[in-house]
Every structure is written in C-alpha cells, then in structure tokens.
C-alpha cells in the first residue's frame, strides 16, 4: 500500500472514531428529544421507531398543567440570579483584599481557604445544616443562596486573575488619592470582565444543575427548584415516559444555550484552572 493510501486510511479511522464518540455522546439527547414529541404509548415500540408516528406538541403545554413547572423554573431563576450576584460581588471584593492589599493575617486566612479545598462537601454538610437550621435558613431560598454564593472557588479564581494585574496600576491610583474602594470599583472591577464571565457561567450552571443542595434544604413542594421538582415529577408519574422526557428537555434548555454561546469560557476555565461545573 502506498504512503498516500495509508494516510487516507488513517484519517478515515480518526474521523470515524471521533464521529462514533459524538454519536455516543448525543444519542441519549436525541432519544430524549424525539420521545418528547411522541404520545406516551409510542415511546417504547417494537421495533423501535426514532421519529414519532404522529408528531405532537401537547406534552410541552400539558407538563405545565401537571406540575408547577413554571414555579420551579421561577424559583430556580430567582435563586440562581441571587447566587451569581452574591458570588461575584463577595469573591471579587475578597480577591482584591487578598491580592492588592497588605495587612497582618492575610496569608494565614488565605491558607485557611486553601486548606478547605481538600475537604469534601459531604464531610461538612451535617454541621452546615445544623448552623443553617439555627439561623432559620432551612427551607428558604435565601439559605440556598447563602449556601451556593460563598463557594470558595470564586475567591481562588478571581484572586488568580488579580495577581496577574500589575500592582503599579493600583499604586498610581493611590498616589492620585483614590480610595481602596474606588480602586476596586473603578479600576479592578471593569478589568475583571473575563474572569467574571467565567465565574457567572460556572455558578449559573452549577446552581441550575444542583440537586443535593435543594434536596437537603428545601422541604416544601412549592419552594422546590427545577432539579428536585423534576425528580419529584419523575417519581410521581413514572410511567408517563413522554412527559418525563419533555420535562428533561425543558430542564436542559437554559444550560444548552449557555453552553452554546459560552463554550469558550467553559473549556478555557477548565483547561487553565481545573474548575468543576
């Protein structure tokens, strides 16, 4: 076989392998999507049929009548927006202190932050719950916002970004008589757009996808977030296959669009700092 033929086979295998990976990655989603347009008794047929015999859209209107799906989505949007706000504000604020100011104990406090990275959430979730219950923050959205909004990873991420910004910039502003708060809000914050974008995307997705947090903290059905709400629906209507797939598709939509438009931030955030979604 000639060199050219060998190379052709090689690239054929490469693309074949990658296409296979893509098919495996996407197949469950394709099945989910087509099932959501089927009648429930058409979901499992033998032989299996990919496309619905009769294409229906009713599932998408029915699901909002069967469960308070709009309420769950509203709750989640509320909690997610507040979480992102708290996280971005307190993380950039603390990161400024950690990277651009000098005071005794700064490094010791930062070390305490680092030391807790190795501690899994499950190892502290019980006392955490006790403390939250003492403060009457269980079964409340405020409690969830506090739970998610103070994730230490925000401080690390922003601090790392701030240490790359030259100190001279702050020094110059100090000489001009600007206060530290002024430097933070008028110089550092405007420069933080890329890191804030990464932070927003990551905390949005992790709050939207959260399951365990609201499972522990939210007990009343009307306060449930999307994931726990969807899970409740799946357990209650376990035979209503098409409707379950419809709920899944709806729960994926925001994440899908964020991923579509901000994929760069995701992949770069992971590649540079090993962030978890």
């Amino acid at each position, binding site marked *: 076989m000639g060199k050219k033929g060998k190379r052709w086979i090689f690239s054929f295998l490469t693309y074949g392998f990658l296409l296979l990976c893509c098919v495996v990655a996407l197949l469950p989603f394709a099945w989910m999507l087509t099932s959501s347009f089927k009648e429930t008794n058409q979901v499992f047929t033998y032989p299996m049929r990919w496309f619905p015999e009769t294409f229906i859209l009713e599932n998408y209107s029915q699901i909002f009548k069967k469960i308070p799906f709009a309420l769950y989505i509203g709750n989640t949007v509320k909690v997610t927006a507040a979480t992102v706000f708290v996280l971005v504000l307190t993380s950039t604020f603390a990161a400024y202190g950690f990277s651009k100011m000098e005071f005794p104990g700064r490094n010791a406090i930062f070390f305490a932050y680092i030391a807790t990275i190795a501690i899994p959430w499950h190892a502290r979730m019980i006392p955490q719950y006790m403390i939250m219950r003492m403060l009457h923050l269980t079964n409340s959205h405020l409690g969830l916002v506090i739970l998610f909004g*103070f994730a230490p990873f925000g401080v690390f991420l922003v601090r790392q970004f701030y240490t790359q910004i030259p100190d001279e910039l702050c020094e110059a502003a100090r000489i001009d008589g600007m206060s530290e708060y002024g430097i933070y809000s008028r110089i550092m914050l405007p420069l933080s757009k890329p890191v804030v974008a990464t932070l927003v995307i990551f905390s949005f997705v992790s709050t939207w996808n959260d399951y365990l947090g609201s499972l522990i903290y939210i007990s009343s059905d009307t306060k449930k977030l999307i994931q726990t709400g969807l899970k409740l629906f799946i357990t209650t209507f376990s035979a209503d296959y098409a409707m379950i797939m419809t709920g899944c598709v709806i729960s994926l939509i925001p994440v899908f669009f964020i991923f579509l438009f901000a994929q760069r931030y995701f992949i770069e955030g*992971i590649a540079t700092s090993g962030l978890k979604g």
Partner: protein
Amino acid sequence: MVQTSNGLREGRRRIPRKYKKWLVGYSFLLPNFLGFCLLVFLPSVFTVIMSFCNWTGAGFQEFVGLKNYTKMIHSSNFRIALKNTLLYAVITVPVILSGALLIASVLNRKIRARGIFRAVCFWPYVTPVVALAAVWNMLFNPNMGLVNSTLAAIGVPLELIPRWTASTTWSLPTVILAQIWKGLGYYMVIFLAGLQSIPGEYYEAARVDGANGRDCFFHITVPLLTPTIFYVLIMLSIDAFQVYEIVAVMTDGGPGRSSTVLAMHIYDSAFVENKFGYASAVSMILFLVVALITLIQFRCEKKWVNY
C-alpha cells in the same frame, strides 16, 4: 517649632493611618470570610466534634467517645457502601483516565472541526444529572429499552441480556457506565490542554531521528504529560469517593442495597434516620480518604512528575 509640631502630628497620625489601612483590608475580606466561616470553616471543625457525639438533631449533644466509629465498623450498611464506593472508584478512575487520554490524543492531531468534536464530547458533562438519569433509565429499561432491544435484535440470548438497574448485579455497573459517559468529556478537555502545551518541535525532532508514532507517544507525550495525568488521577479518585447524585437519581442505592455508596450512607443516616453523630463519623472516613489522596498528591508530585 513648626517642624516639631508637624513631626509630632505626623507621628501621632502614622499609627492610626496604618491601622486604618489594615481595617480597609479586612473590610474587603469580611463579607466573603463571614460566609466562609459559617459554611465551610466552622462546619469542617464541627464534623470532627460531632463524630464523637450522640446527636439525634434535637436536644443537646452527648459525648460518646468512639462509639459511633465502632457502630460504623459493625454496620453492614456501611460495609456495603464502602465496598461499592471502592468498586466504583476502581473502575471509573482507570477507564475515564485512559478513555479521556485516547480521545484527547486523537483530537490533538491535525483535524478539521476540532472545536465541534470537543464541544460535543464535553456536552454530557454540563447537563444536569436528573435528566441524564431519566433518559438512561429508559434507554436501559430491562424490558423495552433501546439497549436491550438492540441486544435481542443482534441475537444475544435472552438469559445473557442484563437487567441493568433492575438487577442487583448490574445496578452499580449501569451507574458506572453512565458516569463514564458523562465524565469523559471533562477530563478530555484537561488532557487536550496538556497536550497542546507540548511544543510541536519535540515531535519534529524525534521524527527526524527516525522515531515512529508509538515512540513519540511513550517517550515524548507521556513523560511531558505526567503532571496532567497525575492531576487527573487525583481529581478522579477524589470525585469517585464523593459520588452521590448520579447514584441517588438513577438507582437510589437499589435494588436493595446493591448500589449504595458512602455519601449516600451519610445522607441517609443524617437526614432520613436523624443520626447526625453517626453520619458525621462516616463523613470523617470520607474526609480521611480524600485527605490521604491529597497528601499523596503533595508528596509524590515531585517524585513522579517530570517537568
């Protein structure tokens, strides 16, 4: 006279100004630090204390020494959960590691549409686990699912077709399969970043010296990639010991106790059975395992990693 009074005034002022600067510094940390203390730092310390106490959630705590730990060792729930968690780790860690490395090295070749391939492989990682579990459970439905009807269609004898999450032997492997499918993309992205940081000249030089593809992989790629491989290994192991959500939504530990894991045992003991002290003892074990892995990371980083 003027000089001295000036000096005096400055001298009196200098100290407060310094303190004022410190105070401003602390004020920047304060909001986040309060949350950090309340939710991360104090709970971490309290877990240790609680693990030596008997607390059912109401009333006050009573010191019971090592009783929670001895109870744990004798608990069959704990032993099954530990065994399942170990099995989960032993399978997911090497499979995801090698699979992610394979996909990343293929993606690192000169190929078209790399961005699209990378994004598609990464997508399952971003999706919420509740939806994933629902669709997996339908695809792997023992009677009507796509997987089993395909297996039957290609002629696999009926008694050999697994009953997936409905059977005690296959329940945990099904979860593991789902996790491998979900997690590959994340680690692939990390490997791809590592691969792309290896300068292309190394390969060119090796090619000139007559090295083939396999030589290049084992003598250039692997040694230069060890920091990344090591990092992924640690992250995967830590993640494996903390697994909860995918098990909870796919099988809820069942059928029976066949797929319970450590984190689920903690959750159930604390929030279902209200045995907070006991659950803290189990979470101490989880903490010790993760701390041990992290310690190994710090110790061996210099020894294993060739920069």
